[in-house]
């Protein structure tokens, strides 16, 4: 800390960033905010690795022939793109960074219930990540991120076991994060913070944690079985030895479908916070949005076999799963309607986080609607395993989840870093991301509908697809620029950005009542909550709300 003599700079208050210096104080920290930053750095690293593979994929697809890489190598590219992006970026992204940082503050606590388990979960993530890196550097995997048997267990000659075990370890990181959140939300809320006063971000993370707790163990045991079968040449999933490959698929998708809800629910939580703040209004239908998060978590476990419609399951089972897949769309639609209703007659501000939120609503809706096409058995038969499916899930995961993540990073950046990011550059980046995204992935809907299969390095028997592929690759380049910009200006802001006030957006929520950046224990004194969530009326006019809030 500098001594204030004749210096023009104000003496920096003590906060969680400057409380202690040194590598050890970071690597052995139990402060949830520092752990969140450790995660932020790690997952950004893996995001760029996954993005690098995406770049190679799109470069290869510029021409119909498999001329950049061999088909076997191409198989490794899309496999590792998927594995890294799903397990090492999207699943932990919002919960481990924004969730870890904000959940204790939003509920008025000093830390999560189990700070050391929080640190352990980061260690496990790093160990799994290192295992994955080693696997990629020593040959990679080519089974697809879906590890389908018996190719993965009996025929592939790539590092399947190592990749499976890396994901196994990272899975426990996810489980521990979820466990910590659920116990914290139940046991650590400040006095007066009832369930109906919780920010919707918390409801979303609660629902996500339920999925992490109940779903992840199933993929853990499944990958373990794959590793054992491959090593000992067993036949649990191998038809030649009496096994059923579909059993693997049932067990795999039982987790992997709910996993996509792990990826989107936290993002929806971010959007609720951002929209409320930049429309200066309480979220319309608070209870509906809160319960829809829980409904998504529950229903999400009932639909997994819609990934197996053409794999050979019974038609009767397919019918049941198809109907359930339609049902799971309802709570998501409820959210979209409520966000839109929140915007109506709101006082809209177009700051960067809000731009990302707008992008989210449009793109997530498109992704979700195309999911309904896929839920219809008749259509699915034609478009399954084509680029239609790829476009569908990228609209949700990139157009939805990733935009929510970026919006959240911008929204809470002043709180996390104590600095303001440059708003002009941020709005430009949001626009670039939106345009780049649509240019990349909209052509893929058309490609898939026209019949271009996924996971093909060589499409020279369908050369007419080249134009759309070129458009898609061009879009990917633009998208890459859009992602690079925030990396650069966030880093720039840490040194040169304007110091942020405690509540730059005049937003509602306990986290904005701490300093920017917060102190290690968040609150000087334990808060006692006597107001409803999203009290924007009160914030903007200074008057307490007279009307009792309904819903």
């Amino acid at each position, binding site marked *: 800390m500098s001594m204030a003599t004749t210096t023009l700079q104000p003496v920096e208050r003590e906060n969680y960033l400057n409380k202690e210096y040194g590598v050890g104080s970071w690597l052995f920290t139990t402060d949830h905010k520092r752990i969140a930053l450790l995660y932020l750095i790690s997952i950004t690293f893996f995001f760029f690795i996954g993005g690098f593979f995406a770049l190679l994929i799109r470069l290869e697809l510029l021409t119909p022939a498999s001329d950049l890489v061999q088909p076997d190598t191409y198989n490794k590219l899309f496999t590792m793109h998927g594995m890294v992006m799903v397990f090492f970026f999207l699943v932990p992204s919002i919960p481990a960074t924004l969730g870890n940082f904000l959940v204790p503050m939003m509920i008025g606590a000093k830390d999560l219930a189990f700070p050391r388990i929080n640190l352990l979960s980061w260690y496990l993530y790093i160990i799994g990540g290192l295992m994955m890196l080693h696997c990629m550097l020593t040959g990679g995997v080519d089974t697809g991120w879906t590890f389908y048997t018996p190719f993965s267990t009996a025929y592939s000659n790539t590092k399947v076991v190592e990749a499976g075990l890396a994901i196994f370890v990272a899975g426990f990181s996810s489980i521990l994060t979820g466990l910590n959140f659920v116990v914290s939300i*139940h046991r650590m809320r400040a006095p007066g913070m009832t369930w109906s006063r919780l920010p919707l971000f918390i409801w979303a993370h609660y629902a996500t944690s339920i999925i992490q707790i*109940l779903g992840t163990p199933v993929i853990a045991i499944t990958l373990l079985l794959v590793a054992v079968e491959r090593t000992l040449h067993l036949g649990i999933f191998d038809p030649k030895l009496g096994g059923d490959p579909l059993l693997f698929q049932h067990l795999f998708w*039982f987790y992997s479908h709910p996993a996509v809800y792990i990826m989107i629910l936290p993002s929806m939580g971010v959007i609720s916070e951002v929209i409320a703040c930049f429309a200066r209004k309480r979220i319309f239908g608070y209870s509906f949005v809160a319960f829809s998060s829980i409904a998504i978590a529950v229903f999400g*476990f*009932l639909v997994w076999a819609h990934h197996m419609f053409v794999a050979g399951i*019974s038609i009767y*089972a397919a019918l*049941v799963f198809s109907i359930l897949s339609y049902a799971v769309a309802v709570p998501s639609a409820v959210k979209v309607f409520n966000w839109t209703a929140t915007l109506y007659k709101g006082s809209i501000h177009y700051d960067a986080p809000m731009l990302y939120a707008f992008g989210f609503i449009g793109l997530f809706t498109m992704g979700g609607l195309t999911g309904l096409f896929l839920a219809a058995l008749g259509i699915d038969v034609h478009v399954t395993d084509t680029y239609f499916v790829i476009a569908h899930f990228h609209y949700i995961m990139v157009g939805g989840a990733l935009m929510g993540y970026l919006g959240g990073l911008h929204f809470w950046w002043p709180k996390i870093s104590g600095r303001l990011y440059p708003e002009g550059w941020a709005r430009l980046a949001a626009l670039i991301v939106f345009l780049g995204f649509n240019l990349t992935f909209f052509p893929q809907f058309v490609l898939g509908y026209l019949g271009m299969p996924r996971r093909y390095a060589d499409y020279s028997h369908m050369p007419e697809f080249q134009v759309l592929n070129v458009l898609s690759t061009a879009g990917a380049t633009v998208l890459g620029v859009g992602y690079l910009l925030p990396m650069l200006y966030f880093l720039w802001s840490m040194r040169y950005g304007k110091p942020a006030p405690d509540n730059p957006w005049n937003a509602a929520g306990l986290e904005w009542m701490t300093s920017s950046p917060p102190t290690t224990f968040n609150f000087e004194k334990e808060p006692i909550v006597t107001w409803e969530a999203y009290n924007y009326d009160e914030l903007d006019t200074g008057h307490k709300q007279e009307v009792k809030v309904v819903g």
Partner: protein
Amino acid sequence: MYFSVWAALLLGTFITYKVAYLDLGRFNAAVALTIATIKALLVALFFMHIKGAHEKLLKLVVVSTLFFLFILLVLSMADYGTRTWS
């Protein structure tokens, strides 16, 4: 009271073991699993103290977990069970 639960558990084990050697056709499995479930309930309710828990939360955790396990088992079986229906 713990001792009576313990005795019941041992008795259940003994019955399961003996009944397995009788020919009840399809009911062998049903009897064995029913007794197993009763034993599991006894351990959970009395040894793990769910019975005396003042909060509903623990019961909710147990019930929801069992519900999702049930979904996994039943919906997967639904596929295998109906594959040969014409």
